């Protein structure tokens, strides 16, 4: 039996490859995700290990919680603590350091902006062994208030060399320096993509606003003193609010924080991989169904010569097993390419992943092989059962087994599921905030349509095909061919449908997002101008900018907004900080209880939703945990309805933000013109100020809306690219099905050629059939996606998606693109069909 299986496989090499590829792509995605995740984790681990090299114990302010939002942002403390530490028995050296915001400008005055990594200013640590591997490559260490040492990557990008003058932007404005040295982190040119400018300690403390303070103290122990022992000894002499941690602990907690942050990202990617695998599985199932149908005779012959039902079934499953293994192995290799590709995609999105060698863990290999084999075998099980159902004699006689009609039970089940799902979608669209309903309804509808697919295929093909019939005989023949085996047509088309439904859903949601942003700006922003960091990944704008803007003639109000990460009920959230005196002039928060005027440093405004969830009313107390200062008890001063503009559920004062270690940078600065001042009069003054802060982007309401739209478009493009994989797999499925159908119809094609069908006409028939199947899948997908997208958007109404926008042209474009893709998919099979040997086809009686 094994020989039979292997020979069968080898006889159909091309088909094997085509079939395997659909699974390979899914497996490649899984592999790529794991490899990329592992690589990123490994990179950060290496990085943190390098940073703590030479340091045994670190002293820092205590954190109430640690994740990527708070990593490395501990509360600064009195520098005098270092004396106490040096006096501890077993300490050989201790060096304090400060870190903060410093944006290096290049020679043309543009900011050196790494993707998502921070732009750091820091003290130059001596002795070097406590500097975390930061070592000079050229020049000398910085001395005095006008000297700086920059990282090698920035030097490479800007062309700065020792002796050059460079401008650096701090929270309180720009300053000029002389570059005196260039340094790297061991082998690496920079730190996970971050730029760094280092100054001598006194200068750093001054420009970073931490005079007389340290953020951390790095301690090196004498030989023979263990890190744990040293930590305990130091801890004993530390004042309250400070802690000592070993380097191992620092690395572990940093790695965990990064892993947590990557977790979401990895899950999302695995989601895309699952979609690809689902589509791939559908295609495998379809392929095997066709193969089994075509081999009915061969399998029946096996049965007739004495193979048992079990053996025949096993032979089909074994074939799937081999294909699965080949596909998984292929996918594993492709996965490395996918990892590299994903890294590039993320780079485009502004998330730069530092480079190190790609990490292939044994877990990745096992997962890839398992997923590939399991999906393939599962998909082949049903056809395998089908293969053994036929009585040997009947099969040997059968010439062209007509397609079985779709069972009544199936129709009823499918109709019930679809109707239920459609009703759910209708509900979710009619009533906003029903995200759960929308989710369940989407799944129900999808399941229903999948079950009902053969019936829908017939209906839609008739509809789509009717106008085609006027185009001539080839189109008519194609339509008949598509209708010939509704199940086959349906499962081929549904693979495409799933991909397109997802793309359409995302498109509708994104389009609604754009419309909603425009709505929010129009409804709730009273600002005439908005300043934000030009790069979405940049941490924010120096507060000095807002101060200078206040001085511009014609400015009425300048309202700044900052953010602080904090935890409420154990979950990390962002807390916005504003000046209650200015915010009302610049934005309409739709205050529903209390008054912004009563907001002070000990109180908080919460969104209506959060207030309702906690049962808070004005005068109640809300507990917010900040990393640096721990639990803070705020009085609820009021509630507001419009969370879209600030994007947070909590609002405090700028004072409370500073006291609790929130960001000292403005995420946005809103400018309102004074009464009677025309915007065009005001603009030049604002532009002049903004010009000195090259990281700032000045927008009016219209251009801001447009910029936001572009950001959403970018996001949409990335998600679409990831979903496109499923679409590509589905198109491969069309190729596969067509190729098999052509093979099956050899005799028919021969007859057609004999009675005078030209090769061109033969190709046209195959092409039309492909287009019909593609349009069928695309139409179903677009309609499904439209409904799902609308339901999702309405479900997310609470998250600021106030408008449902249906991008009709775009969806129509998808269908047209699918039709064109159908033409492409038909190229190979059409050629094959045209090459059919007429003589052999008509002579085989």
């Amino acid at each position, binding site marked *: 039996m094994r020989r039979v299986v292997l020979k069968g496989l080898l006889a159909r090499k091309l088909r094997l490859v085509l079939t395997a590829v659909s699974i390979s792509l899914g497996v490649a995605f899984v592999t790529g995700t794991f490899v990329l995740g592992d690589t990123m984790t490994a990179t950060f681990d290496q990085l943190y290990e390098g940073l703590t090299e030479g340091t045994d114990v670190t002293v820092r302010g205590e954190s109430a919680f640690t994740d990527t939002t708070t990593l490395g942002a501990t509360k600064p403390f009195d520098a005098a603590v270092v004396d106490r530490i040096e006096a501890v028995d077993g300490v050989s050296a201790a060096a304090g350091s400060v870190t903060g915001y410093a944006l290096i400008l290049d020679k043309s005055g543009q900011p050196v902006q790494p993707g998502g990594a921070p732009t750091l200013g820091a003290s130059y640590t001596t002795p070097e062994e406590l500097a975390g591997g930061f070592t000079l490559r050229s020049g000398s260490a910085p001395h005095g208030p006008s000297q700086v040492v920059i990282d090698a990557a920035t030097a490479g990008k800007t062309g700065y060399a020792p002796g050059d003058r460079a401008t650096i932007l701090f929270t309180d404005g720009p300053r000029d320096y002389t570059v005196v040295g260039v340094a790297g982190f061991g082998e690496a040119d920079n730190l996970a993509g971050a730029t760094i400018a280092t100054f001598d300690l006194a200068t750093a403390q001054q420009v970073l606003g931490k005079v007389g303070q340290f953020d951390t103290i790095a301690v090196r122990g004498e030989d023979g003193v263990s890190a744990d022992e040293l930590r305990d000894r130091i801890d004993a002499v530390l004042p309250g609010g400070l802690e000592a941690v070993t380097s191992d602990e620092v690395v572990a907690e940093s790695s965990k924080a990064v892993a947590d942050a990557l977790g979401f990202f990895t899950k999302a990617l695995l989601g895309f991989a699952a979609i690809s695998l689902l589509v791939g599985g559908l295609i495998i199932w379809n392929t095997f169904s066709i193969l089994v149908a075509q081999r009915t005779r061969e399998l029946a012959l096996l049965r007739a010569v004495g193979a048992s039902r079990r053996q025949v079934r096993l032979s089909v499953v074994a074939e799937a097993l081999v294909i699965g293994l080949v596909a998984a192995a292929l996918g594993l290799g492709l996965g490395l390419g996918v990892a590299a590709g994903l890294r590039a995609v993320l780079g485009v999105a502004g998330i730069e992943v530092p480079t190190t060698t790609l990490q292939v863990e044994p877990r990745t290999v096992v997962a890839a092989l398992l997923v590939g084999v399991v999906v393939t075998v599962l998909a082949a099980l049903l056809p395998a059962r089908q293969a053994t159902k036929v009585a040997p004699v009947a099969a040997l006689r059968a010439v062209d087994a007509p397609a079985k009609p779709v069972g009544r039970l199936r129709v009823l089940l499918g109709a019930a599921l679809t109707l239920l799902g459609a009703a759910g979608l209708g509900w979710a669209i009619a009533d906003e905030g029903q995200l759960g309903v929308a989710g369940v309804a989407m799944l129900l509808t999808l399941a229903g349509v999948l079950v009902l697919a053969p019936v829908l295929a017939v209906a839609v093909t008739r509809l789509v095909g009717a106008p085609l019939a006027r185009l001539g005989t080839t189109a*008519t*023949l194609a339509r008949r061919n598509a*209708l010939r085996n509704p199940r086959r047509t349906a499962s081929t088309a549904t693979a495409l449908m799933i991909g397109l439904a997802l793309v359409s859903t995302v498109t509708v949601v994104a389009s609604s997002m754009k419309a909603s942003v425009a709505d929010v700006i129009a409804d709730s922003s009273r600002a005439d101008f908005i300043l934000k960091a030009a790069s979405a990944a940049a941490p924010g704008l120096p507060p000095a900018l807002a101060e200078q803007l206040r001085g511009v003639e014609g400015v009425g109000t300048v309202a700044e907004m900052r953010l602080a990460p904090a935890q409420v009920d154990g979950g990390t959230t962002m807390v916005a900080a504003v000046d209650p005196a200015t915010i009302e002039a610049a934005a309409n928060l739709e205050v529903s209880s209390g008054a912004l005027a009563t907001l002070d440093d000990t109180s908080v405004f919460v969104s209506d939703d959060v207030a309702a969830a906690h049962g808070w009313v004005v005068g109640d107390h809300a507990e917010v945990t900040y990393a640096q200062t721990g639990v803070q008890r705020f009085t609820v001063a009021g509630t507001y309805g419009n969370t879209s503009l600030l994007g947070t559920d909590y609002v405090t004062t700028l004072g409370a933000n500073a006291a609790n270690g929130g960001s000292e940078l403005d995420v946005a600065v809103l400018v309102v013109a004074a009464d009677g001042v025309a915007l065009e009069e005001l603009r030049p003054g604002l532009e002049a100020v903004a010009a000195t802060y090259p990281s700032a982007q000045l927008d009016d309401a219209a251009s801001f809306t447009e910029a936001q739209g572009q950001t959403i478009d970018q996001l949409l493009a990335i998600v679409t690219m990831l979903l496109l994989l499923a679409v590509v797999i589905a198109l491969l499925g069309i190729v596969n099905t067509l190729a098999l159908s052509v093979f099956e119809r050899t005799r028919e094609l021969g007859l*057609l050629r*004999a*009675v005078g069908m030209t090769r061109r006409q033969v190709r046209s028939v195959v092409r039309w059939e492909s287009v019909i199947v593609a349009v069928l899948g695309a139409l179903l997908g677009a309609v499904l996606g439209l409904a799902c997208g609308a339901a999702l958007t309405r479900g997310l109404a609470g998250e600021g998606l106030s408008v449902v926008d249906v991008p009709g042209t775009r969806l129509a474009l998808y269908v047209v693109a699918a039709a064109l893709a159908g033409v492409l998919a038909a190229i190979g099979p059409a050629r094959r069909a045209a090459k059919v040997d007429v003589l052999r086809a008509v002579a085989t009686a």
Partner: protein
Amino acid sequence: MSAPSTTSAPPSAGPPVPAAAVVAAVKSYGSGDASVRALDGVTVVFERSRFTAIMGPSGSGKSTLLHCLAGLDTLTSGDARLGEQSLTGLSEKRLTLLRRDRMGFVFQAFNLLPTLTAAENIRLPLDLAGRSLDREWFDTVVRAVGLADRLDHTPAQLSGGQQQRVAAARALVTRPEIVFADEPTGALDSRSGADLLAFLRRAVDEFGQTIVMVTHDPVAAAHADRVVFLADGRIRDELSAPTTDAVLDAMKRLGN
């Protein structure tokens, strides 16, 4: 063994151009020692409005001769002609168009497209050519094959004999210069076979159709005006106005 008389007849003899002909036709497969000559210097002419049967044992080259005449296969040397048109050297596409516009076909089985109705199958060559249907002629042909009430049926709903008659109607509907029938009754019971042969006979007598039929059945051959006998790729004998017995006798002689 009697010498075949037609082999000496030149194809260009006489003013009326024959419907089809092969001259010194050689068809060999393979090369060197393994080379097989399916046709070994055959010259034969098929006159207009005549029903010719080609007979011979399996492997005699009769099907090859038909395929080469119909432009489905090409000769190794020699020439095949349709009317005055030589098929030698014609492009694949030209041959296809010749088959579509000037020839009709009836094969042994699998003559029809399963997705098309009987009527659609009959008019298929016209549709492929984008030619309009001569309604009157269509009705005449359909009446002649006795399928008027079966036109909307798909092949799966027709009996084997009915399917072959649909194929015959398709072969005639374009008013071709010649109809090639390759074992048209091979898969039919004798009753259905007789019906089909009667129809082919009528097509020749009433419509003046030219038909060339390959068969190994003496009864079928007896419906023709003339029988050409092939063996080992050569023409060995020929009968005019054959009867079943005469054909059987000729076959026996061929076997010696």
